Every structure is written in C-alpha cells, then in structure tokens.
C-alpha cells in the first residue's frame, strides 16, 4: 500500500489521490484485523494477536510519507504498520498461522514480523525493545550518508522504559533522522496511563531532549498526515529527530480478538465514546461528503480489499507448516550470508 512518492511532505493540501490512498490504507488495516477476529475462533492461528482496530489512522497517516528505502520499527501491535509499509498480507497471515511461507518461516508469529525489503528489520515484543533498534537503523543510514529516515512506532507504555529515554537522548545528540511515533492509546495492557505517568503529555519528554514534538488527534488521519509530513521533512532534511504523540484508542482487548470491557478491564462508556470517533468511518464520510469518492466508490473499495484479504487468508491457510526439524536450525548466522 502507501509509500507513493507523490506524497510530497511539503505540499500543504494532500491531493485527492493521497486522500483516497489514506482511506484505502485504513480500510485495509481495519479489514485485515477483522479477518483475524473472524478466523481466530477456528484455533488455526495459534499465536497471541494484538489488534490495532481503532488506531489505523496513525499507521496510514505516518507511513504515507515513508519511501521504500526508509526504515520502520514497530511493537507487538504491528499489523497496521507492516501493511501500510507494503508487506504482503498473505505473507503476514501465513506467519501468524505458523506456516513455512510466513515472513519469519513460522518462527516469529504475530509479535515478531520482519521484512527487510520494506525496511522492517525485526519486531520486538519486549516493551521499549524496538525503540533503540529504530534509532540504530537511522544511525546506520546517517553513517553511510544515505537519505533514509527511520520511523519508530511504540506505545505510551514504552515511553516509561529506560530504552525510550536513552534512545531519544542519543538521537537528539547525533541529530539522527528519526521520526518517533508514540501511539498513545491510554493503556498498557489494563493499566491506564494515569496510573503510570504523572504527566500524560508524553511528547513533553521529547521536548526535554530538545526534539521538536507535537501532540495530535491520532484518530484524524489528515492531522496525522500533515504532522507526519512535517516530521519526515525535518528528518530528511538532516535536522534531526522529530516526535509525534498521536492520541488514540484501541477497541479490542490488549491481546486477542475480544472486547475486554466485560472483564472489567476498562469502562464501557469510554470505549463506546471512542468508537464514536472511529478514524475510518470519520474519514470515509469526509471523503464522501467532499465528493472525492461517492458511497458506491467506497463500497467498491471495501469489497475489493475484502476479496483480496479473503484470498490471502485462504492462501495462507493452505500453506504448509515448516518441517519440525527447523525448530533448532538457524540459531547462528552462517559465515557467508
């Protein structure tokens, strides 16, 4: 999806194509996650899944500014990021189903996808574990004089880890081309932000390191797109890191396909309020109201994506499991790679 170079970061008003692309990316992510919800009860996808339903605008708006050679680092909640960067949904699903044709040959699962050709050099499910890696990717680009930038996605919870602070400090110190993207969804598992941080403005931490930082409505894809344009342009121009705190909300439980409010994990009203602010529906209406696409057009888009994803699910489930002997292979890299 995404990553078209016509998304010139400097252009203040995104073109109709860009807007259509943003909607398509968001729908793609939403429908992908919904397919997982649908197949999960079959118990063929035997791995924990951390769904990003409700947070699609962040992935879509930011990653629209990334080029194929740019790096992307994510977390346990990575599906949207991988899809927006262009990873094939079938290859991801095959991985989640534990099949040999998955992106990690069945060794990683949903928490650890990777795709070097998309600049995704592994995914950590250790909270805060990916942030320094993303800075390291930027360091490599910087040392080699490449113009690649590194987008580093993480949650509000990760901003509590030492690795977050150490990474921001170093990126700012060296002026590395990093776009830090905090998806502040107000929770780390079942723990609300207020129980973990005395000052809920996560982006202020970045300002403390001298990094330009913005807090924005992460459910407004146009706002995300605009801010990410500033951020990517800043990093690409060699001006150093930039920080975006995108305020959003996850609809499903921390892990798994179910809603969690029945289990007392968080207030039902809060969830339903946020569902009213659905980033996808909101933008779809906006596109239709502005006459960029009509309802028939968006429905056709949904149908096409859904068909493609159904095919991806069917393909992935039809793929073979890895040979059991693989379990203990590949621990060390060979001398020649």
């Amino acid at each position: 999806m995404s990553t078209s170079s016509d998304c010139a970061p400097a252009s203040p008003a995104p073109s109709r194509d860009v807007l259509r692309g943003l909607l398509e990316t968001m729908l793609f992510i939403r429908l992908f996650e919904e397919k997982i919800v649908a197949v999960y009860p079959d118990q063929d996808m035997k791995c924990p899944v951390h769904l990003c339903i409700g947070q699609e605008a962040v992935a879509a708006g930011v990653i629209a500014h990334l080029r194929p050679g740019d790096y992307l680092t994510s977390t346990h909640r990575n599906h949207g990021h991988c899809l927006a960067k262009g990873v094939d949904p079938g290859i991801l699903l095959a991985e989640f189903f534990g099949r040999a044709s998955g992106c990690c040959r069945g060794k990683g699962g949903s928490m650890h996808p990777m795709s070097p050709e998309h600049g995704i050099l592994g995914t950590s499910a250790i909270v805060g574990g990916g942030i320094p890696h993303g800075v390291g990717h930027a360091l490599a680009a910087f040392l080699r004089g490449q113009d690649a930038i590194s987008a580093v996605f993480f949650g509000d919870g990760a901003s509590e880890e030492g690795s977050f602070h150490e990474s921001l400090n170093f990126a700012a110190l060296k002026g590395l081309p990093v776009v830090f993207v905090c998806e502040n969804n107000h929770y780390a598992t079942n723990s609300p932000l207020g129980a973990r941080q005395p000052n809920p403005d996560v982006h202020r931490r970045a300002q403390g390191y001298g990094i330009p930082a913005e807090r924005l409505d992460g459910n407004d894809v146009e706002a995300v797109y605009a801010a990410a344009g500033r951020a990517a342009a800043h990093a690409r121009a060699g001006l150093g890191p930039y920080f975006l705190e995108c305020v959003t909300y996850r609809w499903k439980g921390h892990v798994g396909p179910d809603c969690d409010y029945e289990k007392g994990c968080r207030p039902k009203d809060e969830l339903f309020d946020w569902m009213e602010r659905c980033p996808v529906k909101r933008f779809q209406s906006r596109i239709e109201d502005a006459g960029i696409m009509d309802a028939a057009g968006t429905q056709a888009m949904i149908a096409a994506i859904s068909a493609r994803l159904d095919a991806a699910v069917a393909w992935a489930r039809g793929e073979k499991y890895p040979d059991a002997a693989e379990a203990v292979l590949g621990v060390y890299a060979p001398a020649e790679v």
Partner: protein
Amino acid sequence: MPWTKVFLAKEDLACFGPGEGLRGLTFVQALLEAQTQILENDPSAFVIGEGVNDSGGVFGSTLGLADRFGPKRVMDMPIAENGLTGIAAGAAAAGMRPIFVHMRMDFLPMCMDQIVNHAAKWHYMSGGALTVPLVIRSIIGRGWGSAAQHSQGLHSLFLSVPGLKIIAPSTPYDAKGLLMEAAADNNPVLVVEHRWLYGSVGYVPEAPYREPFGKALVRRPGRDCTVVAISQMVYEAMRAAADLEAQGVSVEVVDPRSLKPLDTETILASVRRTGRLVVADVACPMGGAASEIMAAVLETDPGLLAAPAVRVSFPEAPTPCSPVLEEAYYPGARHIAGAVKKTLGLSDHG
C-alpha cells in the same frame, strides 16, 4: 505424605479422603494465599508489578489483593523494570520487604543490572551491614505461539550470581511454603514459576508455614535411575516414571525445589542408590542447573554413575512460534523416559 505428593490429575486429590483436615488448592491459589498472609502478617511487605491490581491479577496469582490491602500495599507500576527493581531493592535496603511480580521471566533481563550488580551484592559490599530482602516472582510461559520473547526459562543466567537465592516450586504446597520462606529471607530471592503449574492441585495447610530452602524431596522412590526434575519437569518425570514402571523400569524422581541453595546431599544419596542420573529442566542446557547438578556428582564421586548421565532440556535454540515447531521444541515425559532408557542401555522403542 499428603503434603509432598505430586498429583497428576485433579481427581487423584480424593485419595486421602475427606475428614482428614486436608484442603486441596491449586498452585495459583496457594501463591495467592501466601501473599495474602505475608501482607497480613508483615506491615513492611508490599506487592509491586505490572497488572498486579488488574482484573486478570497476574494469571490470578494476585487477584483481589489490591481491593483487600489498598494501593500502598499492592502497587501497579510503570513499564520500567530495571528502574523499578532498583527502587524495590532500595526500599528493601531501607527496611521494606517488596514482592516484585513479573508476568514473564523474559522481562528479567531488563532488571539484570539491578539484580546482579546491586541487590545480590549489597549485603556483601556493605560488609554485612545491609540487607536486601526482595522477592522477585517470575513466570515461565509456554504454548500458543508465545515465541522467543515470552517463554524463556532464564534461571540459569542467575545461578552464577552470589548473593541471590533461587527457588522453583512445583507443587501447591511448595508454592505457598517456599514463597513464605522467600518473603522471610533477608536476601533477594528469585522465584521461578512455570505457568503450566498454575492449575496443578495438591494439599495446602491454611495456616501460614515456611518450607526451608535447600531441601530436595524424593517425589517417587525408585531403584534403577534417578531423575532430578525442576519445576514443571517434575510432572513430566512423574508421568515418565509411571510409564516406565509398566515396562519394568523403576525410576526415582527427585525435586530439588530450590536451585540455590541446592540440596546436593539428597540428590547424591539417590544417585548412590540408583547409579544412574537424568536431569530435566525447563531451560536451555548450557551452563544451567542441570549442568550444576551433574557437576555435584562428578565432584563428589564420578564412580557413583554406572552409565553416563543425560540432560533433558530445551534445545539450544530460542522458542519458535509455529505449533509444529513448538511441538518439536519442548521436551516432555517421552524424552525423559527415553533418557532413562539410555542410561540403562535399553532401546527407546516400546
């Protein structure tokens, strides 16, 4: 002895019959009861960890504690394991007795510096003046594609840290008794809990009690081969022993219960009787508890062994995600039985 018996199935609990004042609990209920009594009896104790106060209550092991004891005694925390370990250690040095809970043992590497360089050494470095009575509970996950970062048994990493104690309870009785002992100990104690033990059942006295560290138990007597089994491997060993008995092989299962201190005497006495040794652990083999147990035999009398000893452990690889790879990865009763037969020179078929 009802207290030391390993029950492979819930139904077996009935074997001692009602009316004997015996109460059955699951492993997780025993952990919860221990922490409840610790908090009741010691005002300096507090529980801290991610999600200890939430509706899941760390797989049920801290469920209801926050409601009962309030937020000063049962504390949720930021996701900042290393810093918080240091904070807990500092509080311990200043007279508190924290119980730090990790949903996964895989998060302990985050705390490595504070455990290894600080908590474990503080008593020694202060010339004996200071103590750090800190309990660190950590859970080994398994299955459903937990994969490489959510299923590790990392106790080996900590074995070579002087000043740290390490316990690995396998029964509900030990879960309570050893945890209560850990809370009373004046040193940092690492508790290794396997998630698959949480539903296991056994008899647990209601009154508070402490089980001393460094006392292994013979879970099942046998003549032909000693299997020293750690944590969840105790159950796999008991199953293997039952299977082998049907084939005329008599296995003695020894549960060390604490890895540091390690009760080498009980282990050696058993090996002396059987002349054969298999050690099973829920961890990768290199530099681990199993190696340490074998070293104890070698250092005492290599002549005790009538055949080479065998380790049963995770393979030398991270945990894969795919179900077929997971299945291939984990050793179980079948592997232990195979190892026992190997020590006896029997073929592994039938």
